[in-house]
C-alpha cells in the first residue's frame, strides 16, 4: 500500500480523534510532544496505535514509542515504516 504523507497524517489524526474527540489540531504544536498537549495516557496511546494499525497496517512496537512523540515525528516514522515494512 502506497500512501502519501498527507494520507498518513490524516490517518494519525483520525486515530487520535477517536480517543480525544475534543482535540483541536489547529492549536496543536506539531513539534511538541502530543501526549502532554492532549492528555493522552498510556491506555489512550495504545488505543490510538490499535486504530492506526487498522487504518494503515503499521504495528508500532513498544521499543519505537519514543519515535512517536510529536505529530511531525510520528508521521516521519510511519512513512519510514510504510516504505520498509
Amino acid at each position: 500500500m502506497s500512501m502519501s504523507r498527507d494520507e498518513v497524517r490524516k490517518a494519525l489524526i483520525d486515530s487520535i480523534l477517536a480517543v480525544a474527540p475534543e482535540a483541536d489540531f489547529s492549536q496543536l504544536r506539531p513539534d511538541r510532544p502530543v501526549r502532554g498537549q492532549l492528555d493522552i495516557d498510556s491506555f489512550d496511546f495504545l488505543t490510538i496505535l490499535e486504530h492506526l494499525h487498522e487504518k494503515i497496517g503499521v504495528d508500532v512496537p513498544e521499543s519505537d514509542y519514543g519515535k512517536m512523540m510529536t505529530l511531525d515525528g510520528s508521521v516521519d516514522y510511519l512513512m519510514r515504516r510504510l516504505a520498509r515494512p
Partner: protein
Amino acid sequence: MPSLGADMEDGSFIEWHAEPGQSVARGQAICVVETQKGAVEVEIWEAGVLAKLIASPGQKIPVGQVMALVATAGEDWKAIAAAVPPPPAVTGSGAPPPPSGRVKVSPAARRRAEELGVDLAAVQPSGAHGAISIADVELAAAAKKPPDRQAGMRDAIAAAMSRSKREIPHYYLASEINVERAMAWLEKHNAAVPIGERVLFAALQLKAVACALRETPELNGFYQGGAFRPGTGMHLGVAVSLRGGGLVAPALHDVDKQSLADLMTGLKDLLRRARSGQVRSSEMADPTITVTNLGDLGVDTVFGVIYPPQVALVGIGRSTVKPWVTDGAIVPARIVQATLSADHRVSDGMRGARFLVELDRLFQQPESLA
C-alpha cells in the same frame, strides 16, 4: 434504587431494558439510571420474573425506593402485578389526567411546547379540568434538560472526599520499588504478541496489588456502622480520570484470580465504558479498595484520599530511571513510588508496611503475576 456509592442520595431513571413477564438472572442489567457520576446500568440482585415496572423515565428516585417488583421462584408474577396499585404520578401537582380522548391544551401552551420541543403527551396537566398550562410545559422542558454533569460530578467528589477527610483517620506510607524486572518482563511479552494483546504496566500493577492484599486482608473491605467488614473478593476500584475533568473509580472484580491477559481485556473494557459513561451498578458499588496510577501524568508520588466506606487506597507514581544499588554495584533501574493511604480505625502502620513489602516482593517475580 441501589446505592452506587457512599455519596449517592438518589438517581434519575432513564429507561428499562426488560419488560414484565421476562425472566431475569441475578446480575443482569435491567435498566439505566443517571447518577452524578454518569449513566449506570443497574444490575438486578435477585433472580426471578419481572412482575411490574414501577420506575418511569425522568423520575428522580431516592436510594432504597422500589423500582420494580420481582416474582421469585414459586410466585405468580401476574398475580403480583395485579395486586399492586398503579404507581403515583411523578411530576405535576397530582391532578388527575383527563379521563380519555384528546389532551386539553391552551393555544399559548401548545405554542410554547413547540418552541421548547416538548411532547405534549408527556406533560402532566395541573390546571383545572386536566388542561395543560404554559407552566406545565415549562416544567416538563426543565425536567427534560440533562443535568449539568460536570457540576454534579464535582459535587459528588467533594461530598465523598469531605466525608473521607472528616471521618477517616488516614495514615500514609511510601516505598520505592524497583520495577526494572517487571517492566522488562512485560516488554518481552509485548514484543512477542500482536498489538491487540499488549498488556499495559497498569494491568500488572493491579494484579500485584490484588495479590499483595492476600497478606493484609484488613486493607480490603469497608468500615461501616463502627466496624470493619472484610471484602468478599479483591475488587479493585480503578481511578479513571475523565476527559474534561472529574473521575470515577469503578471496580474490576476478583483481580487476584484473573490471568493477566483477562485482566487487560477487562481493564480496556472498563476504561472504555467509564470514559463513555457506561459503567454498571456493581462496578460502582463493589470496590473494596482503590488504586490510583498517576504515573502517566508525570508525578512521582500520589498520596490518595480514601474513598469511603473503603479503608485503603494504593497509589503508584511514574517510573523513572534511577541509580540503584544491587549486590554492591550501582546500576540504572526503573523505580516507582508506591504509596498506601489507610484507615487507622482498621489497621496500623506495621500492617500497612507489610502490604508494601509484599507488593515489592511480587514486582520482583513478575512471572508469578501472569
